[in-house]
């Protein structure tokens, strides 16, 4: 049922043993527009330049984002933290300048049509 479960790995602690508001230090959800499920995120610095005053969860998120771009949903899936918690942690990392975000483009009919054509062509090329 849960694809992320690996019997050889210890259970993740965060979701079970630490309550979400502790991880987020009581901060509340950022603006909906800032992080959609598919906003792409990457770290700005490599491991060595990172200050150590970040929380363990923030450190782990940064480590995860160092390898390239991931969507907000993928980060939640890999960390197994609730989405709201991930968004709050990411917001604080953006504030600190540790990560960059690439939000989806605002919807416009013309842009949509171009994108739809590209999706159609891509699906046909891959599976046709």
């Amino acid at each position, binding site marked *: 049922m849960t694809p992320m479960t690996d019997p050889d790995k210890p259970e993740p*602690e965060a979701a*079970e043993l630490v309550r979400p508001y502790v991880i987020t230090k009581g901060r509340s959800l950022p603006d909906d527009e800032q992080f959609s499920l598919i906003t*792409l995120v990457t770290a700005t610095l490599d491991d060595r330049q990172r200050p150590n005053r970040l929380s363990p969860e923030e450190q782990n998120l940064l480590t995860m984002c160092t390898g390239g771009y*991931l969507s907000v949903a*993928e980060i939640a899936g890999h*960390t197994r933290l609730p989405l709201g918690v991930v968004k709050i942690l990411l917001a604080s990392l953006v504030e600190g300048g540790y990560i960059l975000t690439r939000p989806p483009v605002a919807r416009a009919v013309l842009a949509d049509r171009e*994108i*739809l054509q590209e999706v159609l062509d891509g699906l046909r090329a891959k*599976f*046709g």
Partner: protein
Amino acid sequence: MVSGPNLDETAYVRDGANQTPVKILVVGHFAVGKTTFIGAISEIPPLSTEETMTRAGESVDDLKGVNGKTTTTVAMDFGRLTISERVVLYLFGTPGQQRFVQMWEDMARGALGALVLVDPERLADSFAVIDLIEQYGLDYAIAVNRFDGSPVREEKALREALDLLDDTPIVACDARDEKSSAAALITLVRFLQDRALQEQI
């Protein structure tokens, strides 16, 4: 700590700095084959997110006790497909559970459209999810997931049973088969193109 901060190279979006992320929803009732469908198309092993369930009437004191453990449940499954050098497509799957209002808002906002997976033997189970899709104003197509040996109903009967508009596409698919699943998505995308044209006029 969180599990596995070090991911394989293939976990990351290829050429992410130049990609525009888009999403399509794959919805349907419990056990209709959403995860199978997403797995057939996705280039990464499907992931899931969990939502924190808050029970009404739970007092603050209760949270300190043994029963205070946060209850989580899988809220959605999703996968990813790099479409081109410019577009990366995410597929989000979720059952029609209205209690996850925030999650539905997150999923629906900016989605290109939705594919509704339907089990022809359990049509009534699809009503709730179709209602939700309509409520969020998403354009959708119906994909009838044909399980082995299940009878194929007439399209007209299906359209009536599900109370669909005349132009809502209905396509048969086998969620286990990537070509069949992709064909259903292609049907949806072509319909979305038609709708985008109509909007422009």
